[in-house]
């Protein structure tokens, strides 16, 4: 179900914890699985659970609790914008509005070509860099002026 590369990465995570605590690696394993599959379908979550010898429901609880896991398909590029207060004071909402207008979608929507999904995020711990957005969960983009948003979207559309 998961690729050999993914399983290898999961093994590295498992090794961080005591040998009788494999479940500790579930967050990392779900992240790795999501990286491979794009999102977490029920059978992906089940595969992770079985690899870690834990109940499928326990893995699903984790996948549904933490908000960076996607339990539904998302576009090739998921863009999450922080609109929390500190960011909003320095243009977070304006940046989000600009993205909505450029992409022609609202939060939690995907462009018809499946390229972009837009999400509203909570505090990313980078308020001094506002406006801040995350690309596919792992790449943080700081000080996102409209020019930089244009550039980012152009680069990603290639």
């Amino acid at each position, binding site marked *: 179900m998961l690729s050999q590369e993914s399983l290898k990465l999961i093994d590295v995570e498992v090794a961080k914890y005591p040998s009788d605590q494999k479940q500790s690696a579930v967050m990392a394993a779900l992240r790795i699985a999501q990286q491979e599959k794009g999102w977490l379908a029920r059978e992906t979550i089940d595969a992770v659970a079985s690899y870690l010898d834990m109940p499928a429901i326990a893995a699903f609880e*984790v996948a549904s609790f933490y908000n960076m896991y996607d339990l539904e398909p998302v576009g090739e590029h998921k863009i999450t914008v922080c609109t929390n207060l500190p960011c909003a*004071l320095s243009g977070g909402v304006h940046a989000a509005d600009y993205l909505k207008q450029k992409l022609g979608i609202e939060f939690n929507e995907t462009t018809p070509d499946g390229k972009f999904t837009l999400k509203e995020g909570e505090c990313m711990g980078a*308020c001094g860099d506002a406006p801040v957005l995350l690309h596919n969960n792992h790449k943080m983009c700081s000080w996102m002026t409209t020019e930089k948003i244009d550039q980012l979207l152009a680069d990603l559309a290639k």
Partner: protein
Amino acid sequence: MSARNLILADLDGDRTWRLQDYLARGGYAALKKIIAESTPPADIIAEVKASVLRGRGGAGFPTGLKWSFMPRSFPGAKYLACNSDEGEPGTFKDRDILRYNPHSVIEGMIIAAYAMGCERGYNYIHGEIFEVYDRFEEALAEARAAGLLGDKILGSDFSFDLFAHHGYGAYICGEETALLESIEGKKGQPRFKPPFPASYGLYGKPTTINNTETFASVPFILRDGGETFLNYGKPNNGGTKLFSISGHVNRPGNYEIELGTPFSELLEMAGGMRGGRKLKGVIPGGSSSPVVPADIMMDCTMDYDSISKAGSMLGSGAVIVMDETTCMVRALERLSYFYFEESCGQCTPCREGTGWLYRVVHRIEHGLGRPDDLDLLNSVTTNIMGRTICALGDAASMPVQSFVKHFGDEFAYHIEHKTCLVPDDVQREGSKIYVGPSC
């Protein structure tokens, strides 16, 4: 009292986060001395107590005292955890410590593990900063390769290994017992206390959890002495602290200053108010701390005692600055939405109450407020506070109480006139995309 870099010392010029540069600026000297002299663990804890270092994550609990709670003669595993799950709106200091000086955290954790007899540690890193997690993993590899981590550290009998655990988006995991649940591979729902982590922590074993900045302060304390650290701050408020300044200032960012520095000086360091506009209010310690009106704030010094006297909390040192273009109802609405979204759902007063608070503030902001809404807000907060397992319910309530208390007129205006006291175009102009000169 002024700017002083102890935690982020000597990071200018070509100095990088790498091990060789950390060594060049005196890094790991404290650990090497401890190992060479086989310093008794009790002496280390005494030194930390002498520094009056207080937890930098928000609660301000004395670190040395916390360390002394760990059972010394406990047979079997003991754990150490670092709380880098920095998601309190306004807070972004731990990210910079981990980006620019990760070895200070590693060294602080090794010393802490030595003092408390922990064999293994985890640094829980906030989900949204994956690149920082990657870098921390690299720093760990450097430390292991240099014999600073792992079996028989620096040839001694002391062994300790440290690993990075990556979060994936849950504010509640910054609560220490939720963090432990999360490391165990579960939903991050806080545990009842007692038992406290020092007796029943990670995997049921004695565990101590400290904030990133707290650990990063430890090497200096052990190298230069607790008293030296204390003297950089003021009595009962030892040392320097990083303040994350966001909002309507000219240079948002992190500033390390001596505790006790006047707020006005800190504001000056951050370049003053954006566009020369007038200060309206400050949230001095992260979004959970009560908002303080401008005139009171301008008389405060930045330390635990002074901010507490002003009716708020120093918290994590996240200073959110709001100027006269800010609508306080809208500001609170956004914060209330955050707590509603992040409540873990375990305790009814918080799960239901945070939604209630958000919906009422939302309807006030959108012109649907009712005359008794302010009383309703206060009543909901008092029915949440003190009735939940963890502090998230209180954290959601304190902003509501303080915004209504200090800016009640603005809320009343909204309810009566169905519109903002601050015109919408003024708000938009005041909070448009702003990129300061430091970027």
